[in-house]
């Protein structure tokens, strides 16, 4: 009995801690309240992946796009986020709850929703769905697939890393080893190799599926980056969401350079590590969400695949801080070559 008491106590403490980490995110981003604010009768439901709003990664980027649309068009919105390790039925029910409550469109953030969106979209043919990072539902009439050419943006920052590196070794840190993050790695390696043939690119991933903590663990990011700097790398690119903060810290301590991901992290990172961020690979999920919602408000609901690549300015590199100004010409040269199809960037490492 005493033993099971102890077990229960430990278990409860664990569950409570987990729950506390989740935090409560009752963020009703709407309620402009003002009389002259634009008002639309569109009600959009946002289904985030694990981490939700505030993950400093792509969920946040999607949230930014939603916020902008809410402010501009006066649409109504409601959000819900996935729980870690939830059942497939939980994802389906989240989408159904939105649809039943009159939310249309429903935006699913993340490829994990692919199967659920496919199933629920068939059940609710009158509701429009959008899914980010997946195009396996390209043929479903009421689903819009918003996908990105992460490898193209990563190619450019890979080239930037190689051009800026003095040691001849650069690094890549991925959050979780999934095909999606491998696209970042593949592009980065190709870019570095193109700019400086024979350069050494070290790469590592923080966790393996189904452990998605690699996207939210700055301590792991820091350790991995420290290892790379100790091994002689002087530029490290991370595609690890919230773990990236640790990568920047390690770079600051090693007086080395780092490259951010998803948003312009020069502007969002802690000021103490700002100087080490030479550039960021931009993956404009916010633009995709905003454009999609603009279409919905106009009554012209997007469908099919919309690809956000270099040409569409869906991906790119940031210049805040001015540390890549000296090589901007070369980078823009690569950019043009990719757009023109002269350079074909691989999607698998």
């Amino acid at each position, binding site marked *: 009995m005493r*033993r099971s008491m102890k077990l229960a106590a430990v278990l409860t403490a664990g569950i409570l801690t987990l*729950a506390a980490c989740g935090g409560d995110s009752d963020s009703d981003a709407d309620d402009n309240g003002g009389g002259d604010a634009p008002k639309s009768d569109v009600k959009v439901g946002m289904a985030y992946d694990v981490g939700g709003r505030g993950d400093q990664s792509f969920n946040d980027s999607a949230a930014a796009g939603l916020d902008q649309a809410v402010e501009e068009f006066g649409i109504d919105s*409601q959000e819900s986020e996935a729980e870690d390790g939830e*059942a497939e039925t939980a994802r389906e029910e989240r989408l159904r*709850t939105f649809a039943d409550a009159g939310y249309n469109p429903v935006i699913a953030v993340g490829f994990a929703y692919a199967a659920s969106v496919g199933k629920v979209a068939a059940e609710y043919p009158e509701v429009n769905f959008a899914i980010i990072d*997946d*195009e*396996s539902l*390209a043929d479903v009439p009421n689903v819009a697939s918003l996908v990105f050419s992460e490898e193209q943006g990563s190619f450019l920052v890979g080239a930037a890393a190689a051009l800026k590196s003095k040691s001849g070794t650069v690094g890549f840190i991925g959050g979780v080893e999934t095909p999606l993050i491998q696209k970042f790695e593949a592009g980065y390696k190709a870019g570095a190799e193109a700019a400086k043939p024979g350069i050494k690119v070290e790469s590592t991933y923080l966790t393996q*599926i189904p452990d998605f903590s690699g996207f939210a663990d700055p301590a792991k990011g820091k350790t991995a980056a420290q290892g790379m700097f100790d091994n002689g790398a002087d530029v490290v690119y991370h595609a690890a969401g919230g773990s990236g903060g640790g990568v920047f810290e390690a770079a600051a301590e090693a007086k080395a350079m780092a490259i951010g991901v998803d948003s312009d992290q020069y502007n969002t990172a802690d000021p103490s590590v700002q100087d080490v961020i030479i550039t960021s690979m931009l993956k404009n999920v916010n633009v995709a969400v905003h454009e999609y919602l603009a279409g919905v408000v106009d009554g012209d609901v997007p469908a099919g695949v919309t690809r956000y690549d270099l040409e569409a300015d869906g991906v790119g590199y940031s210049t805040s801080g001015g540390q890549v100004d000296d090589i901007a010409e070369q980078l823009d040269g690569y950019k043009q070559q990719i757009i023109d199809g002269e350079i074909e960037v691989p999607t698998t490492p």
Partner: protein
Amino acid sequence: MTNARVIRFLLGLAAPVLALVAAFAITSLVLVVAGDPAGDVWSTILSWPEERNLANIIKNATVLYLSGLAVAFGFRMNLFNIGVDGQYRVAAFTAAVVAGEAWLPGYLNTAFAIVCAMAVGAMWAGIAGVLRATRGVSEVISTIMLNAIATGLVAYLLRKVAVREAGSNDIGTKQIPEGSRIPNISIGEGPTSEIYGFIVIAALAGLLFWFVLNKTRFGFDLRATGQSTTAAVASGISVKKMTIVAMLISGGVAGLVGLPILFGSAYAYGSTFQSGLGFAGIAIALLGRNNPIGIAIGALLFAFLDEQSNPLQILVGVSPDIVAITQGVIVLTVVVSYELVRRYGIRLEQREVARVLADQPATPQKEVSA
């Protein structure tokens, strides 16, 4: 006599009721302190589920039930198998590969995959059992370690065998051929109102669990070893053998955990396959007092709370994490209230005995005290 039985029944009922009421009160307190609308939260959670939600609850309870059984089997022998999580993932992956390759036709393929899953689950748990029996390594530590190894191993192997659908960022094993899938059972209209056909196997597993533990010599030995190792040794039971066998069986049951999902809805093991089921099983085994019926109730309760909390964020604007708190509190209050009720029961018995003794003539009592 009937009176005593009624009291025992009421006491048995009192513990879980007390626990639920306490959990209800504590969660409400948390909600009020956090400034959330407690009334709306409870009316959402406690509303009668729609048909499709009911189906989801039964589906998820089936999975949780198997996980609870696996953990409980270890508990009965005083072994804390935290490794059910790793065991079921290794096993489900194995079953997915075996069934996906379809070396055998139709249901032979299914049966073979299930056997493989149980064997792999048993082996994975057996490592911890052997380490405990031969080197005295605590199974708590070794199974946690094995969970981490399972994650790495499955992720590595998955990348080796993975097939990727065009345009998807998900990777998974080959789809199980249609002839080897286990048909779902309909409880209403439409495909959303179906429950896993695997529920039959889960129920059989529960029955077998009860039979083996309560009606066989082996089960007696196991429980005896769990309650007192020294007594077990004294009566000629090989504790080492029992440790290994108990871990093997616990792991074998753990091998079944992911299979309802695999054969009933996912048809492949991929990066979005449900994780963390093993840990839920620990809570459910505790909740169900390691009893097959109790575990079923616990699994249903947890699945119910999970399902009903899902729309909270959308409809009430409260994070569904609140239910994680409720679940944790329930586990704690169940353990506490069982202890309280047990002590109360003992006191009641003592009073009864004292009364009976006091009523008796003085002479035999003197003899007793002499």
